């Protein structure tokens, strides 16, 4: 845990890499993932850098691979993933890869274009087949009128179709027609334009094709219609054809006589069959090519990404032309310098360069990046801290303490044995199966988030069970584990009849034998109070909430003081570590004094009151709240106002007030003196000094006032521990009485069924509202208590995170996008 207390010690190093060995060295460093390179040419455009051509070639390769990947996806061929991660290939292998991809892409494109032509052919033939089939009925209809010209002549004109009447007037053969296929959704517009443009002089019949086709180019499913248009004259024909063209309708020749149509239909059928065999062969070929691709594409993608990452990194380097070497600067952990040296040596050896690469540690004024080594367990907690702000370099990192305090404060607000158990089981399930879950990344962001915080959930579950046990609440019911320490029957005159006839009874702990000290075997023969947590008798008490409120509120203030004091003690560590003794004496000491004199004093009073005042004299117990207010108004505590807690209280409080005030002044003054001291050392001009002085004064005064106010407001803020815990308890109580209780209260057989049904409602609401929603709210409040109340005492969080050049990160980010 030692390394989590402060961030790693970092050093800025300069690398001199021989140009022939640079690639291999960077590749080794990428595998290692411990060096963060700095951009040494920030003013150079992306396309003016040295290795831009190589980067471009990688882009091109990546494009080809993406194309192949898309083809794989189109055919639903799974990509082989054996979890193998290859090393970055040497630059000379790039040409091989390029060639390979080039060839594959060309093959694929050829296969695709062939397939597309074949499919188009196939589509056309299918469409023709439909035309022949569907137009049959149109022609038959027409022929019917054609065969009965006399009938048509003699009959009523208006009852006949347009075609019929025209056919009866002139020879049928004079009517021209075109047949074709059009997209179904274009049909209405097509019909309308046709009618308008030809002024109603054409006759259109259409019928939908039930089968849907696949567009050979885009692969989309489309629905089409067969249509036939009859018209008269050449001019109309041109017009109709133009309109057809405008609507992207495909026209097919269709002979008039049934025999010819049949012949063509037979021909079409045989050609379709031929095409189908050819198509299946092409498909097989395509699958063959793709299956090869599927085997290797993951490896290739990783290789290309690695090469690209290496060249991108090399682009950050300075080129020293005279000495034929590249100069790089990087941040790395001081503890890992040896590892980096080793990698460099390996890189130099593998590239066969004779001149070794040199690593040189540089001195710098710049503040180094913050690097906290985390593991599976600590990473979630570190993430909580980093979300607020990355720690300044080498300052105390709150995350090791957060591991315990966060779940604890959460649990104070979420205290329920049953809910905690469910959460624990869920967390345990995540942790137990983590290997499996981590391997199959899902796209569900919420799931990923919960998986990331699996240890957090586990701990929150455990702590909630603990606090739930203390509050003695399990789904809002109490457990009588040790036996209650209250004895109702010890009251004189309370016999069975009396108890039966009274809805509620006042049990006075001051009466002898009622509370503790009973000799009877039941309920609690020891004569001691309930040994751990809340006595279960409170569950049935009508003043349960009032009693618990006072208890939890005071507890919240005490916990708040502890955490704030702890935060201040971490600040002590910071001051000592950075050798900031002026701040220590003039800032830290007054701060502690103030906190202790106000809130510490309050906590002392709380504890004192708990310890000294008991059931016998509780009727004139002092009010701490009024007492505290009076303290600020310089009123001495008195017995009359019920604010006197103990003898000599007034004197003690006066001493505290004096210490406190002097502490405030001290903080302001001493800090100013300290600044003045350091200012007079520097040889800045007098005027400037004065100006800065004034500014510093103001800032310091504001700072002091802010701190004093914060002490109060932060303490008040800790009361959320009580408020949320109350809300949680009440909500689960309501859920129990309104839902579960109503089911259990049903009589007889109905009760069995009713309870069963109600149980599902109860459990759904428990998980949905109490666990998820309440859990989230408690989580947020715990987070706030850490970020604001705790960390404001010592944490500046002005650092920037160490992001080393690492293949691991590059591959995992991108392969799974």
């Amino acid at each position, binding site marked *: 845990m030692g390394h989590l207390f402060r961030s790693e010690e970092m050093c800025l190093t300069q690398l001199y890499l021989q140009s022939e060995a640079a690639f291999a060295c960077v590749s080794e460093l990428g595998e290692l993932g411990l060096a963060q390179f700095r951009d040494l040419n920030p003013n150079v455009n992306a*396309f003016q850098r040295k290795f831009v051509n190589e980067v471009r070639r990688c882009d091109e390769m990546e494009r080809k691979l*993406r194309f192949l990947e898309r083809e794989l996806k189109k055919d639903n061929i799974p990509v082989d993933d054996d979890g193998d991660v290859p090393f970055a290939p040497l630059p000379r292998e790039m040409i091989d890869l390029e060639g390979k991809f080039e060839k594959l892409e060309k093959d694929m494109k050829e296969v695709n274009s062939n397939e597309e032509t074949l499919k188009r052919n196939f589509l056309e033939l299918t469409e023709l087949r439909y035309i022949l089939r569907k137009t049959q009925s149109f022609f038959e209809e027409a022929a019917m009128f054609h065969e009965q010209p006399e009938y048509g002549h003699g009959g009523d004109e208006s009852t006949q179709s347009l075609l019929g009447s025209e056919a009866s007037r002139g020879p049928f053969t004079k009517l021209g027609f075109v047949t074709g296929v059009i997209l179904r959704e274009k049909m209405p517009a097509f019909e309308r334009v046709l009618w308008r443009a030809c002024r109603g002089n054409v006759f259109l019949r259409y019928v939908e094709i039930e089968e849907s086709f696949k567009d050979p180019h885009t692969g989309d499913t489309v629905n089409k219609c067969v249509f036939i248009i009859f018209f008269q004259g050449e001019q109309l024909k041109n017009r109709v054809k133009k309109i057809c063209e*405008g609507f*992207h309708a495909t026209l097919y020749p269709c002979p008039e006589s049934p025999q010819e149509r049949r012949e063509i239909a037979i021909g079409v059928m045989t050609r379709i069959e031929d095409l189908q065999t050819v198509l299946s062969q092409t498909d097989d070929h395509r699958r063959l090519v793709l299956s090869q691709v599927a085997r290797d594409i993951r490896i290739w993608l990783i290789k290309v990404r690695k090469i690209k990452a290496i060249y991108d990194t090399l682009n950050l380097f300075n080129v020293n032309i005279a000495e034929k070497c590249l100069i790089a600067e990087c941040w790395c952990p001081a503890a890992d310098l040896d590892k980096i040296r080793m990698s460099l040596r390996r890189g130099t050896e593998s590239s066969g360069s004779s001149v070794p690469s040199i690593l040189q540690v540089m001195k710098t004024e710049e503040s180094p990046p913050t690097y906290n080594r985390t593991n599976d367990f600590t990473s979630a907690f570190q993430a909580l801290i980093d979300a607020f702000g990355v720690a300044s370099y080498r300052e105390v990192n709150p995350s090791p303490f957060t591991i315990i305090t966060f779940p604890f404060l959460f649990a104070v607000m979420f205290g329920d044995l049953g809910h905690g158990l469910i959460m624990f089981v869920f967390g345990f399930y995540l942790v137990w199966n983590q290997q499996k879950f981590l391997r199959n990344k899902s796209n569900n962001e919420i799931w990923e988030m919960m998986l990331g915080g699996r240890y957090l959930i586990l701990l929150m579950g455990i702590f909630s069970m603990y606090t739930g046990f203390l509050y003695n609440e399990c789904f809002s019911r109490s457990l009588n584990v040790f036996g209650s320490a209250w004895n109702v029957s010890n009251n004189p005159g309370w016999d069975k009849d009396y108890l039966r006839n009274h809805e509620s009874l006042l049990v006075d702990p001051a009466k002898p034998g009622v509370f503790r000290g009973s000799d009877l075997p039941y309920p609690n023969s020891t004569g001691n109070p309930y040994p751990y947590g809340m006595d279960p008798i409170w569950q049935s008490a009508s003043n349960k909430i009032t009693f618990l409120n006072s208890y939890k509120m005071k507890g919240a203030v005490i916990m708040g003081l502890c955490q704030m004091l702890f935060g201040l003690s971490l600040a002590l560590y910071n001051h000592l570590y950075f050798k900031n003794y002026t701040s220590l004496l003039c800032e830290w000491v007054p701060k502690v004094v103030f906190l202790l004199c106000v809130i510490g004093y309050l906590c002392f009073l709380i504890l004192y009151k708990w310890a000294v005042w008991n059931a016998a004299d509780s009727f004139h117990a002092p009010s701490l709240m009024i007492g505290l207010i009076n303290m600020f108004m310089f009123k001495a505590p008195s017995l009359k106002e019920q604010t006197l807690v103990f003898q000599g209280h007034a004197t003690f409080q006066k001493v505290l007030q004096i210490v406190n005030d002097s502490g405030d002044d001290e903080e302001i003054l001493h800090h100013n003196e300290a600044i003045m001291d350091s200012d007079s050392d520097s040889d800045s001009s007098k005027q400037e000094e004065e100006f800065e002085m004034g500014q510093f004064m103001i800032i310091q005064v504001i700072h002091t006032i802010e701190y004093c106010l914060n002490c109060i407001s932060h303490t008040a803020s800790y009361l959320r521990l009580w408020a949320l815990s109350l809300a949680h308890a009440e909500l689960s109580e309501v859920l129990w009485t309104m839902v579960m209780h109503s089911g259990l209260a049903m009589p007889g057989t109905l009760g069995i069924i009713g309870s069963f049904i109600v149980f599902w409602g109860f459990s759904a609401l428990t998980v949905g509202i109490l666990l998820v929603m309440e859990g989230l709210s408690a989580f947020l409040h715990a987070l706030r208590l850490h970020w604001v109340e705790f960390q404001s005492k010592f944490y500046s969080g002005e650092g920037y995170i160490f992001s080393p050049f690492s293949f691991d990160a590059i591959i995992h980010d991108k392969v799974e996008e």
Partner: protein
Amino acid sequence: MGSFDLSEIFYNVDSGYLEGLIRGFKNGILRQEDYRHLTQCDTLEDLKLHLQGTDYGNFLANEPSPLTVSVIDDKLREKLVAEFEYIRNHSYKELGVFLDFIKYSYMIDNIILLITGTLHQRQLSELLTKCHPLGTFDQMETVTIATNTADLYNAILVDSPLAPFFKECISEEDLNEMNIEIIRNTLYKAYLEAFYDWCKEKGGATADVMCEILAFEADRRSIIITINSFGTELTKEDRAKLYPRRGKLYPDGLIELARADDYETVKRIAEYYADYRPLFDGTGNGPGDKTLEDKFFEHEVTLNVNSFMQQFQYGVFYSYVKLKEQECRNVIWIAECIAQRHRAKIESYIPIM
């Protein structure tokens, strides 16, 4: 501003998301610094590399090398169209109508392009690639069958959304280049007037912003029509009919413009208007001079950028499309200069501040 407009209360409910989106898109518009980098590029590949670092992201990543300007053009346009269609598909009621109005201008351009192309015996397939995808509609490709405007209207456009704009230009004359130009301008006039009136009726901030922009658009058309008509057979009466009557020039300026005979007169008329006076100052065709057209574009950009200063109005949608279009023109201009190794004029793009 005095009137209390209920529709603004519900603006965020109906279109708040889309406005947020459009403002986000607007932040992705290339900045001066990006242009400076772009103009330093030596090849189109460099251009691609730099555009990758902007909001365009990987829009060219799947294009095989070598790149051509037309590919870049297509892709730029594709992106804008995708954004626009997304917004149109999510728009509600009035915003939908507003966005359709934006589309109409592209429809007009497409129709005119197709008719002109057909007159010059071009293939339909070749013409279609040149049509703006924002302006496509079902019946569009059949306009080639029309030989006169009455035909065009009765057979094809009567069902299209452009029908109301077409009323004024129906005649039995055959289509020729002269009256295609007249059709275009008449259509545009009707369109601008309708759009302006719609915005006016909408009221509120939309009217404040859009009427300003559309008035400028109307005046620009009037001025350009006048200047281009010198030396053609267009009569002054016919010319006067083409002026959109919604701009700041209406009515006095348009009456003057109708009488104008040369560039100087136009300039003199424009000088009466504070907004247009600076546009005519310092224009010319010499090297280093900006053309009047560029000046107009610059003014348009300023108006469109200003439209983002107000909230609860539809003007941002219009302005975004126009700004993005200007940006496409800029990028293409730079790309052309790079491709043709003609770097002298590479700086004459119109920056969007």
